[in-house]
């Protein structure tokens, strides 16, 4: 039972950042119909920015997190303006190929620029865990979970309560109708991609100090982000949040009780099952398939 409680806590912490990743990816797909292969690389980018700001420039930890997320959003906006805007009329496969090309460039630039040695990012939090009964957790992880939840809430408020959010939701539902109603779809796309990328970079910036920062950290995470959005249904925002937490628990409990070897495989096995049985995702049938 103690072990189960500990797994529950670990899974929740893991799931929070997975949810951030998933929301960003599914938002971009929902609004722009773009499968974003650079998502994992933006995650790594956020982590490297925190490393550069904190360890190399000596900037305050919290400020660095904010800056890393903003820089990620800026990089996302640049990708959208440079690569995606000229391809707005292109078919989905061409766009995917371009995004794979962009991911190759980003990943190898990270490897080239930062070298293969993984970096540790110091944080202002204590190195000793908080202990409550049988459960122990690092203060840094609690902070990460809180920030992730705050970002999710803030994102929801942005979509639900602001004009920009309304324009985004309108484009989400029907881009052409939104354009007819006067929504400037081009800028909605740029904003969407920037926000999605910013969320990925934020996830990387938050997890960088928890783990280590390495150039290949984005690979597996990028693939897992796909697993998360498929679990929740592509383009389904609440689904992505639920999918994120679900994957966190699946990996944690699967790893703890079934097999640590297959821990990273659970997500992918689940996707194949989901797609074979219920292609529209587990959460809500909103997206038409095919």
């Amino acid at each position, binding site marked *: 039972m103690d072990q189960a409680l500990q797994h529950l806590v670990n899974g929740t912490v893991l799931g929070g950042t997975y949810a951030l990743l998933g929301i960003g990816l599914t938002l971009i797909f929902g609004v722009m119909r773009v499968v974003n292969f650079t998502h994992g690389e933006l995650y790594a980018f956020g982590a490297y920015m925190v490393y550069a700001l904190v360890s190399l420039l000596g900037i305050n930890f919290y400020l660095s997190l904010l800056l890393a997320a903003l820089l990620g959003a800026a990089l996302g906006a640049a990708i959208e303006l440079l690569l995606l805007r000229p391809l707005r009329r292109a078919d989905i496969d061409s766009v995917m190929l371009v995004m794979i090309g962009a991911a190759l460039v980003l990943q190898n630039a990270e490897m080239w620029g930062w070298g*293969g040695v993984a970096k540790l990012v110091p944080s202002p939090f204590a*190195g000793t*865990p908080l*202990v409550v009964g049988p459960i122990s957790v690092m203060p840094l992880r609690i902070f990460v979970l809180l920030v992730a939840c705050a970002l999710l809430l803030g994102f929801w408020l942005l979509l639900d309560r602001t004009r920009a959010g309304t324009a985004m939701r309108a484009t989400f539902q029907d881009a052409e109708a939104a354009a007819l109603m006067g929504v400037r779809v081009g800028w909605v796309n740029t904003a969407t991609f920037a926000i999605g990328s910013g969320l990925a970079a934020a996830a990387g910036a938050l997890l960088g100090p928890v783990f280590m920062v390495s150039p290949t950290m984005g690979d597996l995470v990028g693939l897992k982000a796909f697993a998360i959005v498929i679990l929740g249904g592509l383009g389904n925002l609440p689904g992505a949040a639920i999918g994120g937490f679900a994957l966190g628990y699946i990996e944690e409990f699967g790893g703890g009780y079934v097999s640590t070897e297959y821990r*990273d495989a659970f997500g992918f096995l689940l996707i194949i099952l989901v797609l074979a049985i219920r292609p529209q995702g587990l959460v809500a049938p909103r997206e038409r398939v095919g």
Partner: protein
Amino acid sequence: MLNRRTALLSGLAMPALLRTASAQSDGPIRIGMTQPLTGAVAASGNYVANGAKIAVEVLNRAGGVMGRPLELILEDNKSNPREAVAAAEKLVLRDRVPVLIGAWSSTFTLSIMPKLLEYRVPMVVETSSAERITTSGNPWVFRIAPTSAMEAAAFRELLGKFDPPIRRIDFLSVNNDFGRGATEKFSAALGGAGIAIGRSETMTPEATDLSAQLTALKQSDGDTVFLTTGVEQQTLMLRQAVEQRLGKRIVTTGGSFPDALLANPLPPGNASFHILFYAPWFPERAPYPQIAETYTAEWNRKGWEFAGLTEGFRGYDAVLTVAEAIRLAGRAEGEAIREALWRVDIHGVNGDIRFVKEGPAGRESGQNRPNVSIIRLAEGRTSLL
């Protein structure tokens, strides 16, 4: 000179063609080396390559071998077995090197090994730990790195240094040859010494969150966890073990050292133990202090990362070994160097280097017996156990 066309067509005559080509030149003597200089395990590969570079410099300053300077030709295997084969073929077929050093990971070394038989070129293996490398009957392989079984046997001799003593052990290993091999051999060696064997958990090389493994290990009543993986996962595991209150002694195997914990130490009260083949903090305690001090001084003079010394010595010792074999052979030619490798008996950073026979009779590979030391790391400071 052979008729090139018939040589190629018959296929069988190919080694003859190679031999004539590689024996002729009288410029520098070429030594081929392949290491993972880029990709997932690039950090360690570059350390080993750096060690080899300074060995070549030191030897050339002393006049080279047989009056000819040595030239190290370094080829990246990009942390990938397919590229390891391509790199070896490039070194042998294009650069015509008579001897190879490589290839860091067991998988890369194993993938090159059939090519050694094919081209009749010996290879000095500097890092790979898999048993199969020297037991599969490839007479072109000479390993100076210890196998997991040797490391475990050497560790067993040092058991008495632990206080409180080790009574029951668990394992956390990376899911590959290196990790699984260490689990198996340490279980056998320590089980034979009356130590109880508990759980054995694995992780993928990419895994960053080890909470599930650690939570599982915590349920075991062992007192010591043997950790076998690369430097990065060592660091991650040691940090997360504090978080999950693992409360056990942790011993890392394999000879690498989580140097990131020197600058960012674990909180007070957490110590870890590391089996190393060279402890750069204490060169004076090495078997041959003068050699170790030369190596360490040259490395530091280059301004390379201090932590790399723990792995760079492999490249240094490999070049010393190859140079001695060329000197004994009297010519830079594959078959002669292979013969001569059996007669090598020199002092390296790690200690004596000489090969004993392993594997099926008639096709034995060479294996060197290494020295190990155990380093205790606590609060960013190291001490020799």
